[in-house]
């Protein structure tokens, strides 16, 4: 009783406000479009997993900050050897998992070894392929030895796929996640919501909220009315940009448009006979009117891009002029390539509305210059099988949401099948470079290379359109990774 009275007094002092403000200051409900299939980010690729648990329940050695930079998390500091082959991390003291067990260097070794194991189910295993060995030097020191310098190692370790888990709880993380984060898992009402509660024993700065509920509402109309009824306090990735204007008109809400890591591109199968001709790919690039696609598919939300790179990144170069909308030039190029009579291509579209709507618009734009498309709307499973694995497509539209993923152009067997030795050289240089300035130079050259080769049609950077209660503060504006970091969120 005494402690309760004390805490009320403390709250009143700290807030300097009356009870009502405190009464609802404890919890928040976040709307999400998709429900995660399970909650272990080391065993699945679904973005919704990280959107619930990243930084909230699970933490890695390092983590992404809102601006995309790398910050310490479980590792308070690290040392990189001069040859770039040895990383020594020092762990924070006094970190415990939600089940009470202490975090040790052995847990880190267990977690990272697990990624590289033969029977690993980690969706991003390739990112960590350079890690040769992990050694627990002492209770709080971990040493990673690499087989080759990997400039992006810290960046890769910040992904949700490299979170640190405990051997005792790893088997049940899918349904009852046990991490080290500021929130612990409380309850999962299937197909409805997941509830997290504050972790009172958190090692770092404690969360400001007592509880967070993630509520899953896939239908945009239902999402709209849930926000309007204040059933959810924020919808960080609102599924239907067309509805946002109705929120803007309402004084209770704030619409925030931020950036994401999603380069939305018209992928071209570079190994198809007609499409292996750079003139045809260039013609497609010039046939596209990016602004019409952004307006028509995204209701104006999105930034045009001319290469596979995020515009908010410091190394970004604007190459949109290189593939400006120019139907006449496109027709001319097609005629030169021997397709004056016209050309028919398949256009396979996955479910998101940027692809479905964008696809119809692109089909109309390509028709203008004499390219007919056969649209097929596919589910994700079919898309992965036919397009991504089977490479049975001419054109497709997809948003590449992984951060800083230009390296995919160095993979010959990647689904758009771009094969360029020049680009592979650049990629090797990038991996060898650890100096930020040198890395940025290489990144610029890579952007230029793929734009010059007209590998794909570069459309726009996916915007992050979110709506939130005006009094709710501390949510991320941008989306450097798929996450809803709730650690700093609070009511005003």
């Amino acid at each position, binding site marked *: 009783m005494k402690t309760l009275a004390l805490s009320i007094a403390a709250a009143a002092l700290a807030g300097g406000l009356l009870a009502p403000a405190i009464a609802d200051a404890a919890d928040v409900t976040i709307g999400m479009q998709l429900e995660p299939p399970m909650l272990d980010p080391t065993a699945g690729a679904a973005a919704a997993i990280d959107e619930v648990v990243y930084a909230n329940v699970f933490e890695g050695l390092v983590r992404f900050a809102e601006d995309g930079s790398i910050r310490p998390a479980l590792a308070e500091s690290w040392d990189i050897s001069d040859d770039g082959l040895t990383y020594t991390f020092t762990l924070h003291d006094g970190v415990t998992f939600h089940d009470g067990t202490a975090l040790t260097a052995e847990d880190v070794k267990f977690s990272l070894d697990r990624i590289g194991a033969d029977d690993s189910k980690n969706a991003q295993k390739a990112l960590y392929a350079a890690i040769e060995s992990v050694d627990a030097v002492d209770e709080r020191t971990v040493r990673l030895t690499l087989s080759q310098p990997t400039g992006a190692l810290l960046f890769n370790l910040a992904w949700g796929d490299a979170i640190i888990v405990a051997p005792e709880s790893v088997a049940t993380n899918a349904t009852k996640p046990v991490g080290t984060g500021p929130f612990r898992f409380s309850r999962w009402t299937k197909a409805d919501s997941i509830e997290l509660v504050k972790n009172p024993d958190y090692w770092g700065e404690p969360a400001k909220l007592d509880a967070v509920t993630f509520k899953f509402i896939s239908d945009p109309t239902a999402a709209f009315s849930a926000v309007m009824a204040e059933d959810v306090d924020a919808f960080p990735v609102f599924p239907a940009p067309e*509805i946002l204007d*109705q929120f803007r008109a309402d004084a209770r809400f704030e619409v925030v448009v931020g950036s994401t890591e999603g380069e939305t591109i018209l992928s071209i199968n570079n190994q198809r006979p007609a499409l292996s001709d750079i003139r045809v790919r260039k013609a497609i690039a010039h046939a596209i009117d990016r602004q019409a696609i952004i307006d028509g598919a995204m209701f104006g939300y999105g930034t045009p891009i001319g290469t596979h790179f995020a515009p908010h990144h410091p190394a970004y170069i604007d190459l949109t002029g290189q593939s400006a909308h120019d139907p006449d030039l496109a027709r001319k190029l097609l005629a030169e390539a021997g397709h004056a009579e016209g050309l028919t291509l398949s256009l396979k579209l996955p479910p998101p509305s940027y692809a479905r709507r964008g*696809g119809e618009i692109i089909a109309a734009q390509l028709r203008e210059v004499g390219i007919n498309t056969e*649209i097929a709307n*596919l589910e994700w499973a*079919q898309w992965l099988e036919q397009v991504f694995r089977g490479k049975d497509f001419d054109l497709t539209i997809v948003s590449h949401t992984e951060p800083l993923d230009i390296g995919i152009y160095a993979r010959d067997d990647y689904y758009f099948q771009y094969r360029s030795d020049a680009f592979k050289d650049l990629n090797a240089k990038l991996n060898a470079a650890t100096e930020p300035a040198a890395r940025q130079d290489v990144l610029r050259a890579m952007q230029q290379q793929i734009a010059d080769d007209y590998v794909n049609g570069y459309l726009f950077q996916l915007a992050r359109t979110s709506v939130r209660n005006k009094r709710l503060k501390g949510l991320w504006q941008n989306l450097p990774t798929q996450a809803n970091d709730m650690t700093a969120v609070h009511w005003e």
Partner: protein
Amino acid sequence: MSEADLPRAPSRFVALLGTRSFVVGVLLSAVFLVGGLISLVWTPYDVTVLAIADRLRPPSPSHWFGTDQFGRDVLSMVMVGARTSIAVGLIAVGIGVALGVPLGLAAAALRGGFLDDVIMRTNDLIFAFPSLVIAILITAVFGPGAVNAIIAIGIFNIPVFARLARGAALSLWTRDFLLAARVAGKGPARISVEHILPNIANLLIVQATIQFSLGILAEAALSYVGLGAQPPVPSWGRMLAESQTLIGLAPHVALFPGFAIVLTVLGLNLTGDGLRDALDPKLRRGRT
């Protein structure tokens, strides 16, 4: 009733015209049928040309039904969409009749036999499957598209016609005029085609009208979940699906394709009622 008892054609026609529901029904469905036919040669606007700047305009003299999320003319889309709905519904009925009626006739001809049992049990089995789920599975196997939607809907029409044909044929096999045909040495197959089929044609036509309207509803449902005709071919169901998030912003995009479905199906149902009333006076009390 023997063949001689059947009403003569002219009186049947007069009876039809006398049925209000038949006239109203035919007129209603004809509106969309004609709209679909006209769209083959002319639509107010080209449905493949997008005009993003003119999107989601409410109905006006230049766009009677307004424009959709890409600035396309909704009236033109509804006209072209009629083609998809009618084609899918019609062909699916065709599959049901072409496969179901022979099976039903065969089962009746071999009544009580092993084949009869197999056919009817297979029918029961098909009925036991949740039809929409199976339709979704079929399109998952073969990919979405109008043809696969037709197959998915058509399969479930087969048992309907088989059962109907068998039931009606069974009652005919006991009649005198068939006995006469058998005495004359005609085989069961010939009797089925020459004597039974003409006599159950009325029933089949009525059922075909009903299945046609159900087929249009099923196509709309499949398109609504994204498994019917693929863009840019307009389809009523997909128009509804795509307009769902816009319903607060531009209700007309969701209303007109919906009206089109309702009126066409209503028209066909009324036609079916009228046909039934005219062709089979015993059932005049209305369809159930």
